[in-house]
């Protein structure tokens, strides 16, 4: 299984190369990988059935509890089959759709990486690995939405998707961490058996909300749905694969996966029922307003995801079975419809449904694919969409009052989806020839193969439902429900209540289809009246964020070095004095115990004070800099006297170099000769200086009073010569005992050097503010 997941990443490396040799035909070759993964997982089926689940363990970073563990049960098998199966046709379709595109190789690479990440999400068992792959799908989705990166709309959509799903992913991570630590185990396979413990835990609600945030953002539930329609900026193969058939289903997968441990509680039912139901209605309603084929499909995808969420919220075996069937049906028909929409755009040059028309005669095969997908979407016998609908109606009919409300929502939503599905499939194809930018004709085999096969799969799944019902669907349902599902599925269940509801749905849908233009005008009017939506809210939020950052920057980054220094030192004084006073830890000095300074100590002290005096009264900056050096040298001599020759040595050199560098900086920046301060400024500077200086003195005195733990010093003294063959302990610590620290430090020195170099060489053109900032930075780092 490891190879099945990771092979996508490996092949992605070679995809651009393959494209160089084979051109767009590389799509055929690259499709072999998902195809073989599909066959591989099909081959695992028997084992999954007999053992309930397959577990595979690969150590990755065992010390962190991070392992690549894979868990293949009914639900992950279904997802893996969908991802690899649809992926096969998407690879072929991509070759046809982006034929001749300069960056087709890159596109293939992104697609393969996405597919591998998605497989990782549904197959991983380790919570951290799930999170990792989850974020990888967000990142690849970002790259794919922004594939056409020269367009501003693409970049915005890509960023928006990344921000929304990324934030959701972080919430999910928090949920995972709480979940994992409260159980003491990060393996989903093990956690699944702790359902009762988790539901009784007081942490249940936080875990539920955090994980659902991840699922809702990824699966575009209201109010996080807005990124999905915008993601249609991506090339159509991306929309078909990521934003309808697979990636957006990751949230659904997460909810299915955690159903045994989080599901079937009041909180779960309410949250999923309300948000899912609302998303379903809102999605279909907004979809009716759209005139762009891809936008219509995007909003119905959002609606379908809402429907799935709602069904999982309703819970119980029947609803889950409905959800699994609808998941299968939706992936097949929506993937197909997106590819059809892409083909129409490719051939006719527009996606505007009001301009399209009469394409059916020109592109019969595409028309057939569109029709069969729409039949499944509308839930018409004998397609799998029909059985999914029957199944969910059946389940919702026999439930509590909440289920009854959900049933009405489901009927309304399905009716609207029926209308929209046929609008997408029929309006561009039938009627008189539309006014289109391109002379349309049938696309090549690479373009129609995918939608036709997916459509036929939908048909085949419907006809063979009795067989699927007790194999793959059964294993998926029992994996979610954690029990043995026993319902038999039939294509024709006789004349019963669900069938009646189905007929009601279809009639409603047909009415909406008949009055489609009026419905669109109505939806348009209502949505215009509402005006505001989360999409606009996102922009407002970003604008607010920028304004606040600007405010913070303007307040603290004034561009005046004096302000920076003053603020830093004031803060430093506070950091030293406040804790010392608050904890009543002022140094307690016993002056009588101190010995009187010897005459040379007193002499050096005098030099230091003289140096300080010179700094204060100096007329020119240069004099102050040099005088500061006097002070430094005096301190260095003191170090020497008290037995720290290394420190003293270093201090000498640093003082020398500081004087040189400061003088250089001064001449380079053409500063004023004098730096005299007057009045208020001088008083503030004096107070700050005295506060910091006396603070340090007090701090050092206080430190001297505490009991020193000498074990480290003793260790170094004892072993410096014995182990490290060196008598200079300071040096031995630097280059042997603590060599790794030193390695880090010299890397910092080097990096700082390079950065300072870059800042000095930075020459902003006609940009006064920036140049001011650059210079100040320089001054700062030099001093």
């Amino acid at each position, binding site marked *: 299984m490891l190879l099945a997941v990771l092979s996508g990443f490996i092949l992605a490396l070679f995809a651009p190369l393959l494209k160089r040799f084979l051109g767009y035909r590389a799509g055929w070759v690259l499709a072999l990988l998902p195809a073989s993964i599909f066959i591989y997982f099909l081959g695992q089926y028997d084992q999954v059935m007999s053992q309930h689940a397959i577990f595979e363990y690969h150590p990755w970073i065992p010390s962190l509890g991070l392992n690549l563990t894979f868990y293949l049960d009914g639900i992950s098998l279904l997802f893996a089959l969908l991802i690899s199966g649809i992926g096969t046709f998407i690879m072929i379709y991509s070759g046809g759709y982006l034929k001749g595109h300069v960056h087709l190789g890159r596109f293939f690479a992104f697609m393969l990486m996405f597919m591998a990440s998605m497989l990782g999400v549904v197959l991983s068992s380790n919570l951290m690995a799930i999170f990792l792959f989850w974020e990888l799908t967000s990142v690849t989705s970002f790259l794919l939405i922004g594939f056409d990166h020269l367009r501003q709309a693409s970049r915005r959509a890509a960023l928006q998707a990344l921000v929304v799903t990324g934030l959701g992913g972080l919430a999910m991570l928090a949920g995972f961490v709480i979940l994992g630590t409260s159980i003491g185990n990060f393996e989903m396979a093990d956690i699944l058996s702790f359902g009762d413990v988790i539901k009784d835990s007081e942490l249940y609600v936080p875990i539920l909300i955090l994980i659902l945030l991840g699922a809702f953002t990824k699966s575009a539930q209201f109010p996080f749905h807005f990124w999905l329609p915008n993601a249609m900026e991506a090339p159509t193969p991306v929309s078909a694969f990521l934003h309808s058939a697979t990636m957006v289903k990751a949230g659904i997968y997460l909810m299915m996966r955690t159903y045994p441990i989080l599901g079937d509680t009041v909180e779960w039912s309410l949250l999923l029922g309300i948000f899912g139901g609302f998303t379903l209605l809102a999605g279909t309603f907004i979809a009716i307003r759209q005139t762009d084929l891809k936008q219509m499909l995007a909003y119905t995808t959002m609606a379908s995801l809402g429907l799935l969420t709602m069904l999982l919220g309703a819970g119980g075996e029947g609803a889950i079975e409905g959800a699994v069937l609808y998941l299968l049906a939706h992936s097949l028909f929506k993937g197909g419809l997106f590819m059809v929409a892409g083909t129409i755009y490719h051939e006719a040059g527009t996606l505007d449904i009001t301009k399209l028309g009469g394409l059916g005669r020109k592109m019969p095969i595409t028309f057939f694919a569109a029709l069969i997908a729409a039949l499944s979407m509308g839930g018409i016998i004998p397609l799998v969409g029909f059985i999914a609908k029957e199944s969910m109606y059946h389940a919702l009919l026999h439930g509590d009052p909440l289920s009854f409300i959900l049933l009405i929502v489901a009927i309304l939503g399905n009716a609207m989806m029926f209308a929209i599905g046929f609008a997408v499939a029929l309006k561009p194809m039938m009627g008189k020839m539309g006014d289109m930018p391109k002379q349309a004709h049938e696309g090549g085999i690479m373009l129609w193969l995918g939608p036709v096969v997916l459509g036929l799969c939908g048909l085949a799944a419907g006809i063979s439902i009795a067989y699927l019902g007790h194999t793959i669907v059964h294993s998926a349902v029992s994996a979610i429900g954690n029990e043995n599902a026993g319902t038999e599925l039939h294509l024709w269940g006789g004349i019963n209540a669900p069938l009646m509801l189905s007929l009601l749905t279809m009639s409603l849908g047909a009415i909406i289809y008949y009055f489609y233009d009026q419905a669109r005008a109505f939806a348009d009017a209502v949505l215009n009246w509402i005006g505001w939506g989360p999409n606009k809210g996102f922009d407002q939020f970003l604008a607010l964020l920028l304004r606040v950052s600007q405010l913070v920057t303007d307040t603290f980054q004034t561009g005046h070095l004096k302000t920076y220094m003053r603020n830093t030192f004031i803060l430093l004084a506070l950091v030293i004095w406040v804790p010392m006073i608050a904890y009543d830890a002022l140094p307690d000095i016993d002056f009588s115990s101190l010995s009187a300074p010897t005459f040379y100590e007193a002499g050096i002290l005098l030099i230091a004070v003289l140096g300080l005096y010179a700094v204060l009264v100096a007329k020119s900056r240069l004099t102050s800099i040099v005088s500061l050096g006097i002070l430094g040298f005096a301190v260095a001599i003191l170090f020497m006297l008290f037995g720290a020759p290394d420190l003293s040595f270093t201090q000498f050199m640093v003082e020398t170099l500081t004087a040189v560098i400061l003088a250089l900086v001064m001449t380079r920046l053409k500063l004023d000769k004098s730096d005299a301060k007057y009045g208020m400024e001088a008083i503030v500077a004096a107070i700050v200086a005295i506060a910091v200086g006396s603070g340090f003195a007090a701090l050092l005195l206080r430190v001297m009073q505490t009991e020193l733990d000498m074990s480290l010093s003793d260790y170094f003294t004892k072993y410096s010569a014995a182990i490290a*063959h060196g008598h*200079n302990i*300071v040096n031995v610590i*630097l280059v042997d005992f603590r*060599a*790794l620290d030193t390695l880090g430090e010299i890397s910092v020195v080097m990096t700082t050097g390079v950065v300072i170099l870059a800042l000095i060489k930075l020459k902003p053109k006609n940009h006064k503010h920036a140049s001011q900032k650059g210079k100040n930075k320089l001054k700062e780092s030099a001093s």
Partner: protein
Amino acid sequence: MNTIILRTIAPALTALMIIFSLFVLLRGHNEPGGGFIGGLIAASAMALYGISSGVQAVRRALYFHPVTMGGFGVLMAACSGIPSYINNVPFLSGIWWKVPLGDGEYFDLSTPMIFDIGVWFVVVGAITAIMLTLEEAD
């Protein structure tokens, strides 16, 4: 600075300082000194030479770009950890070899020494790079 005395004496002084810096670097394991201090001395030497004879002279004398020297230093310090991999001890553990010099004399070669020389290069490189760039006219 254009005093003839400084210009005359600076090259000799620089050379002396660099020799002293190497001396301080190599004796550092047992006496006060080491790569950091040695590097600072060498950097001061460069500063002196730069002030007296100009930036170009220093750049010519160094031959390599100072940033290159610094980068080489980091690399060298990091590479001194490779022998510990071979000996299967923790990264950057000190390892000593006795290199025979003939006449029964031995030279103690060790990874800490290589590491220290790396530190020396970083300090000289980084500080000289900053100083020379500051000194150069726009």
